């Protein structure tokens, strides 16, 4: 699965995107955030307050309860500040 990161999530994790094989028990966005937190300091710092992280599954906004099976690209980013 491809993960992409934006803004301070990208900066703290230290990369803009990566391919990752997820364990079978990672089924929802929420599971994914918990799993990523354990991958190192950068991830832990980016996801220290998982409730503020916004998520898109295949380029559409998704809630933390959403299931991720079948997704090809998941994006994690802070609340948006465009306009």
């Amino acid at each position, binding site marked *: 699965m491809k993960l992409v990161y934006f803004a301070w999530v990208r900066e703290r994790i230290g990369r803009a995107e990566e391919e990752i094989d997820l364990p079978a028990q990672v089924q929802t966005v929420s599971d994914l955030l918990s799993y990523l937190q354990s991958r190192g300091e950068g991830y832990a710092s980016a996801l220290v307050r998982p409730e503020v992280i916004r998520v*898109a599954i295949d380029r*559409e906004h998704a809630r933390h309860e959403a299931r991720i099976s079948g997704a090809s690209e998941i994006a994690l980013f802070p609340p*948006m*500040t465009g*306009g």
Partner: protein
Amino acid sequence: MPSSLAPTIRVQREDFDLAGEVAWLTGGRTDVGAVVTFSGLCRDEEGTLAALELEHYPGMAEGEIERIAEDALDRWPLTGMTVIHRFGRIRPGENIVLVVAASHHRHAAFEAASFLMDYLKTRAPFWKKEHPQDRAEGGWVEAKEADDEATARWRKG
């Protein structure tokens, strides 16, 4: 009027020409009675900002603006709509975003432009980073609760 009006949506690094965009929606037709434009500019009230860096999610940014635009077209009888959002380095005084809503009457055009901006601010994947004049590394602009509240008022009850 065709019922399937296609909005013009562009996500681009370059600046835009407001007058040209309005002319595109009104040229050669006589049924447009109202055009509302909103331009969002990079502002620097304190005189300390060198530039804003606008980051976006290519692909999703266009798709999300498209969804917002379709929603606006469902809600109001518009004759035309244009949304342009810039990315990259933008200095104080320069344009960031343009919304143009055209309709037979002003009410729909005003409301649609306001709706589009409220949703763009809270749903379109763009992020602003400030580059201050006095140091190289800036900070990310924080999302405002007032923007979420402004978006929430459009939700159908």
